[in-house]
């Protein structure tokens, strides 16, 4: 373990040198290749020990020490945390490419475009053409994007990765705070509960549909969504109805939460005399009374068990509004009659 900690610390220092020091001017192919080997070693260390709380803590402490000493020496130094370790090779690459002292011969090596066959025989096959590989994949996706929905494909990949990470965080122990923190970061990273976030969450829920092993992260995600009302509302208004129905059918908690959202939308409505219709006032984007009714009906069709309880609730709400049977006085009354309840 001592050796591992020492290696971890040295590699982080190496990364700092790669990104900030003129010493890279002396680097050759061998040096650079070794640097990437060490970064890969750290990635492996992370995957091996991230689920072991004791070892993880020790490593985090070591990293803290190393970061502090580097901060003293290098102005503007960016810390490397334990959760950065899985991406250490990429961080090394970014550091190197941004370092103006990196010899052009090494840059050429990274952008090499020889055929894959040639590269298999090369001594530095992991480093040679590393950047070419990335550029190629990104460009190929863009070229194929007219044929295929790229953002949907991206969301699917992101969704799967999200569930993998969530699963890993939840398997660490009973403390759910890291998982919650993670989801919070994801939400932030998506700049709020916009379309992309919704796509990712939906993909995350749908890809783990048939996987028994993924029950824990799925349930956790749904719980988390339930507690974040604004997110849930955005999810319900952004996603296509069929998708929402699918989720409601498969997840009872989601079904109930969705129903609550629909009721919330109804409660936000006001009767507009000039239009002779109930309209939403607060939420954005708006859903019409007609559409709301349709959503309720679709939900009841998919989840018949929900109908009876909801009917009871709506009736109670109508009574609290005065129990009138005249149109335009209570949204609950009008809803009930629209739903033939």
């Amino acid at each position, binding site marked *: 373990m001592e050796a591992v900690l020492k290696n971890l610390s040295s590699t982080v220092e190496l990364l700092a040198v790669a990104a900030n020091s003129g010493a890279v001017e002396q680097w050759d192919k061998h040096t650079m290749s070794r640097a990437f080997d060490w970064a890969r070693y750290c990635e492996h260390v992370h995957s091996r020990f991230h689920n072991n709380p004791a070892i993880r803590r020790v490593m985090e402490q070591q990293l803290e020490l190393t970061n502090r000493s580097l901060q003293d020496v290098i102005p503007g130094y960016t810390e490397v945390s334990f959760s950065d370790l899985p991406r250490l090779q990429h961080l090394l690459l970014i550091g190197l490419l941004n370092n103006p002292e990196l010899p052009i011969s090494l840059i050429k090596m990274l952008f090499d475009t020889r055929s894959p066959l040639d590269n298999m025989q090369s001594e530095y096959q992991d480093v040679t053409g590393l*950047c070419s590989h990335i550029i190629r994949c990104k460009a190929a996706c863009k070229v194929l994007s007219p044929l295929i929905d790229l953002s949907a494909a991206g969301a699917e990949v992101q969704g799967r990765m999200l569930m993998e990470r969530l699963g890993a965080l939840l398997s660490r122990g009973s403390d759910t705070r890291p998982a919650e923190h993670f989801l919070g970061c994801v939400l932030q990273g998506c700049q709020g509960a916009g379309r992309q976030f919704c796509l990712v969450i939906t993909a995350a829920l749908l890809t783990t549909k048939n996987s028994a092993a993924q029950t824990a992260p799925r349930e956790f995600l749904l719980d988390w969504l339930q507690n974040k009302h604004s997110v849930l509302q955005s999810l319900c208004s952004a996603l296509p109805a069929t998708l929402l129905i699918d989720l409601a059918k498969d997840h009872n908690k989601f079904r109930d939460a969705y129903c609550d959202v629909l009721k919330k939308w109804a409660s936000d409505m006001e009767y507009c005399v000039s239009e002779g219709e109930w309209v939403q006032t607060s939420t954005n984007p708006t859903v019409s009374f007609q559409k709301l009714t349709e959503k309720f009906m679709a939900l009841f069709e998919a989840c018949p068990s929900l109908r009876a309880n909801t009917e009871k609730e709506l009736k109670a709400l109508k009574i609290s509004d005065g129990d009138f049977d005249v149109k335009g006085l209570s949204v609950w009354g009008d809803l009930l009659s629209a739903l033939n309840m």
Partner: protein
Amino acid sequence: LLAPDELLCCFYSMQFWLDKAVAWGQADSPDTQKDTCLHLNRLRDFLQQLLAHINNMVTETMKKLPLLGQFLGRLCWNPYVTAGDTFRRPLLQCLWGLYSEHPSNAVERKANQWIRKVLCQLATEEDDGVAQALMKHMGVPAKEYHVNVLKKVLSKYSYWCSCDSILATSDACVPLITCPEASPLIGALLQQPVTCVKEALSEHFLDALSSAYSSWNLSLEEQAVVSLWYHSLPSLEEAVLSLLESVTNTVSTPQMLHQQVAQSLLVGILFFFMRNLSIRIKSVCCVVLSFCPLGGTTKCFETWFLLVQCAHWVQAAVQLLVTSEPEDCGPLLWLLTFYHHPTTGGTTECFGVQVRAREAWEHLRSVFLVSARPPIDRLQSLVTPLSSQPQQPSPAPLLTLSLLVNLLFSASGR
């Protein structure tokens, strides 16, 4: 060193290509996509031209082509150009060419800075901010993410029955022909069962494939390559040519060559398609030659039998012989002699036949060199000595006659 007028040519082309690069960057419509794909090969050639200039005189080139940096920069951000290795390579090489190892002035230093910046951005910048944040939080390296997205995109392609989608997809895949990750999709397109009357794959796609294949830039599975041969005759021709060349040029023992060639599926296709292809006859002779010295009479007979089925080859060999230089005659004469008088190689008999064939040929040639229309008695005298020694096997009179006929015809045609 390249002539100044060639640089001038580049200068005029540059405006054309810069306008193209600007147009491609501005719109992302199906028309611009199609236009880019159609121009890719010519663009590559132009970049290689530029590269030659750049390698020779950097500052000269930069002075005469001030828009060069702008042009290269725009291309770097065009995914249709950067997806394929064969187009990205000359582009990057141009950039390397503009880089000064020891910058001596501000212009060179600035150029260096700019090149580093472009490359860094290309490799590390993410235009999808959300994806970038997610990668960070999920601890997923960029390369892994992009590889996975590409895999997902490629797997989403569904094979509809309509020919139009396959046509559209094959067109869209033109920039991806030298992108190794896309080879499963390209292979799948090639191996689509041909259900339509018209060719479902775009001609442009097949041309681009064939061009990449001939310059060894294609990385397809064996099955996909065979499908390519079915779709594109030029690729098959190319495959045959390269096989023949490897047979004639490799230093390995005839045994190894023989095994290599014999075991190859290509041999069967080679002889079957020989009727349709315009392959160099001399190479064919060498292949046939490689079979005969070994294996004994059975192999020899098989080879001869195959040759007989492609008799027009022999005809072509005769015609070629008539117009060849003396030093090139060897393999052709051998083929003709073998055709008329098949013997196993290495034997005295074979050797004897070959020698006499050569003598006869040289004699014939000398007669015709003197006069394009040799007198009849002269010709008669040629035939007689050849058949005057019945004890010794001679190149069949048929051969001599055939040679004579061809010589006469070529002489009169001149």
